[in-house]
């Protein structure tokens, strides 16, 4: 069955003028989507996925960004040369878009209703009352409770998931031919993610719209798309049907992406990683964009660009490996020896697993204040009596949705927050109720790595100062020379070079900053580390590097981790035991095998079933 595609992108080139030079953010990208079908674009951040989307809806930030060539055909008509007035008639009407950040994508000072009716009135010429009826209807379609009341609500009263439903209602209110969903669930909890993706699918079927799904999550792609384009460095490097791609990935980048996703089957081994990070668009290599990071790189790869060509029924890849002509030339000599198998087991021997941290009935209540004199009228029970033990050299994962109290619990355990009740015993000593002076020696033993590597480092301090600060405060007996020696040893351990000490955090990539965060913690010789979503903000290949680093320092120093996360694939890979938290309480505890193979609590079951999985790999 051949259908005319709703949207056809041909040789699209979107460039940016930057102070560093011309950035070829999207370079010669072609694809098409048929009515009712979904094409997913995957790749790490900085690969040009979002710029591709913005180019289609004609919202490239100007004047820096511009479309340098190519066509975007909507129902056979190229929309790039159209005037702004014509383009506005297409936006929100024929092509609409939902964004990654539901929390900030709605106007905070306008009601939900007025934000939906706006597009309806504009494009369908309906009267206010007709638009209102239509908007309430849309609110019902996206399954928001009490649509009539919701119409008059302001966005701040809604949770992230509900706001994303509103965004979907806005986007689909004019029954567009193409819906672009740019990381629609990345900022949401895993249970909400499943609901939102199902909702999009269902409404897509109803109005038979084409969907361009942009995501970095391969498992989301597997469940929700028919075709996949893998993007790297502003180009599509591989394009195939979803089943084909996951069964038989051809491009080395795709292969690596699939391999660095943590999961149960990779337990006990180091994760496969991609060295380095995606370069900025101004520094893309001359030849194959993946050269420099590729494990199959050949002599000619850095200079000769491979074309995206079809290898077998609809499966196309842009790699010289599949070009017989290229492979016969001397250019095809491999540059690097193929990577040998990764060093095997990293698990700590089980014999001396004594308890390092014992938490009994830990509580943390936030006071709720009311009235003229702000008297405490009640408490918000963020952590409501949790008990757990963590053994030396092992990892306990604390999982749950955002707002369930995971982070508060972690902070209360290491006494960053003073618990309202309960006890925490660290290495045989009760640390709850200690005086500030008494707790000081324990500050270096119990440390925390934060989620956001961008905002948790002081931008005004040099990296060396950031790392040294803890040492100065907690190890006053060390002199400057000893401190500097220690610093360079730790930097080396986390994969940074000593010359980086004199640089500022903004000069580093996300992965490097998280390494700095880890160095900052390691330098004071902790025994127990809380990793609070330590890899959540990172791309999957960088996440693999960081997870490997955490595993190896755990092995080398016999450290214990409390791994706070909402991503269960990380849990099954890295954790020994799991505690599932819901509403301030632990609903289920056990080893990874127990929890994942036979969950008992209904919430755990729900959480596990919501995780998208790739079954063919």
């Amino acid at each position: 069955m051949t259908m005319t595609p709703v949207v056809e992108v041909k040789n699209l080139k979107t460039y940016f003028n930057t102070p560093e030079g011309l950035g070829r953010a999207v370079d010669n990208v072609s694809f098409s989507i048929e009515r009712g079908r979904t094409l997913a674009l995957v790749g790490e951040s900085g690969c040009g996925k979002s710029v591709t989307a913005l180019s289609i809806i004609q919202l490239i930030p100007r004047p820096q960004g511009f479309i340098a060539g190519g066509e975007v055909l909507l129902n056979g008509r190229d929309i790039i040369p159209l005037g702004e007035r014509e383009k506005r008639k297409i936006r929100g009407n024929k092509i609409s878009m939902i964004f990654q950040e539901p929390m900030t994508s709605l106007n905070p000072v306008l009601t939900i209703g007025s934000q939906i009716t706006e597009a309806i009135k504009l494009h369908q010429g309906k009267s206010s009352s007709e638009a209102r009826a239509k908007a309430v209807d849309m609110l019902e379609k996206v399954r928001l409770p009490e649509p009539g009341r919701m119409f008059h609500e302001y966005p701040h009263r809604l949770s992230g998931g509900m706001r994303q439903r509103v965004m979907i209602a806005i986007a689909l209110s004019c029954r567009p031919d193409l819906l672009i969903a740019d990381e629609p669930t990345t900022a949401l909890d895993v249970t909400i993610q499943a609901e939102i993706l199902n909702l999009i699918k269902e409404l897509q079927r109803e109005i038979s719209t084409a969907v361009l799904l942009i995501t970095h999550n391969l498992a989301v792609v597997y469940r929700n798309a028919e075709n996949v384009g893998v993007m790297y460095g502003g180009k599509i490097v591989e394009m195939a049907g979803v089943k084909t791609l996951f069964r038989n990935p051809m491009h080395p980048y795709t292969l690596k992406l699939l391999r660095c996703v943590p999961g149960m089957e990779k337990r006990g081994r180091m994760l496969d990683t991609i060295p380095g990070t995606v370069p900025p668009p101004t520094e893309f290599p001359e030849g194959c964009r993946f050269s420099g990071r590729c494990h199959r790189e050949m002599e000619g790869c850095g200079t000769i660009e491979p074309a995206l060509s079809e290898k077998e029924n609809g499966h196309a890849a842009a790699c010289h490996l599949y070009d017989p002509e290229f492979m016969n030339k001397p250019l095809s000599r491999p540059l690097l020896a193929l990577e040998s198998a990764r060093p095997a087991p990293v698990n700590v021997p089980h014999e001396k697993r004594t308890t390092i941290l014992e938490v009994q009935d830990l509580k943390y209540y936030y006071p709720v204040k009311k009235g003229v004199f702000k008297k405490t009228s009640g408490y918000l029970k963020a952590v409501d009596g949790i008990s757990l033990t963590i053994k030396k050299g092992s990892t306990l994962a604390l999982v749950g949705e955002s707002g369930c109290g995971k982070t508060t619990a972690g902070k209360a355990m290491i006494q960053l927050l003073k618990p309202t009740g309960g006890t925490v015993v660290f290495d045989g000593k009760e640390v709850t109720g200690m005086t500030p002076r008494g707790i000081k020696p324990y500050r270096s033993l119990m440390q925390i790595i934060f989620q956001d590597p961008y905002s948790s480092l002081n931008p005004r301090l040099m990296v060396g100062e950031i790392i040294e600060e803890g040492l100065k405060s907690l190890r006053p007996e060390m002199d400057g020379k000893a401190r500097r020696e220690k610093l360079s040893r730790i930097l080396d351990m986390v994969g940074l070079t000593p010359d980086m000490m004199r640089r500022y955090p903004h000069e580093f990539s996300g992965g490097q900053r998280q390494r700095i965060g880890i160095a900052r913690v390691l330098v004071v010789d902790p025994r127990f580390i809380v990793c609070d979503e330590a890899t959540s903000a990172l791309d999957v290949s960088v996440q693999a590097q960081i997870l490997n680093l955490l595993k190896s320092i755990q092995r080398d120093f016999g450290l214990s981790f409390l791994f706070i996360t909402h991503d269960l694939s990380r849990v099954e890979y890295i954790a020994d035991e799991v505690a599932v938290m819901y509403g301030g309480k632990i609903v289920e505890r056990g080893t990874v095998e127990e929890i994942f193979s036979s969950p008992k609590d209904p919430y755990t079951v729900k959480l596990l079933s919501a995780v998208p999985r790739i079954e063919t790999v």
Partner: protein
Amino acid sequence: MLNYIIRRVLYAVPIIIGVNLLTTLLFFYVNTPDDMARKILGEKNVTPALVEGWKKEHGYDLPVFVNPAQNGIGKVTRTIFFSKSVPLAWLDFGKSDRNNIDIAYEIKDRMWPSLAVALPTFAIGILVNLTLAMGLAFVRGTYLDLWGVVVCVIMMSVSTLFYIIGGQYIFGKLLVLSPISGYDTGGYAAKFVILPVVVGVISSVGSGVRFYRTVYLEELGKDYIRTARAKGLSETAVLFRHGLKNAMIPVLTNVVVSIPFLFYGSLLMESFFSIPGLGSFTIDAINAQDFAIVRAMVYLGSILYIAGLILTDISYTLVDPRITLE
């Protein structure tokens, strides 16, 4: 909301007492009651008896903060600070030290000229600045925007005094479009008010436009603006319907707090344009070492400032649905 306002008013009490304490402390650090008496009675032919008499008459014959001669509570109450401060609580400002004029009457009388200058300056100023700022935001990134900002920086670098004197020279002397200074009552006030208002607005343009433009551009970079564009809205709808109301939130912080101060007038403008308002009243009192007036005006100023802050908080709830006062 009511709870919030009550709490804020209660917080204001220690602040106002503190301000009063500081005013008294500073004033009597520089002056003694004897200095005041001599200055007001005239430097020549003043006998100690006259000085003592003046002090007794005006209530300055007491120690400033602590009276060691008294017992118990009297140590504190029988002092200049206490006896002069307490009546302020019920807005009894008393009489001025120099001419025995009724300060409260004077304030009521001089409030109107101050308002006649300050209110139009304020309203027109906001309108002009906001319009120019939005204009620059509309052409953001172009040469027009760049030069607009350059002009703003130049204008804000020039002292207000220059605008005043320049305005008086050009409009008053060269073009003879308005009187150089002075004031008249009723409808005749208009021709005296125009020049100060124009000068006031022009001197605010530099910093005002630059500030509003920054606020506005920051708002235009937000995600919801992208959403609005993705709906297919026109640029004007995006700028006005979506951008403006959000940009108003930080603008309000800057603006509402100064509304009560419009009564207070501008010290600089009023003394240069000879406007008989509260601003020139204060300046004259400082020059004349009239503690009664200075104290009353500082007291009034702090009350107006606190009122401005409370008003700002209340105005937030009007434009931002996310904020409720508790």
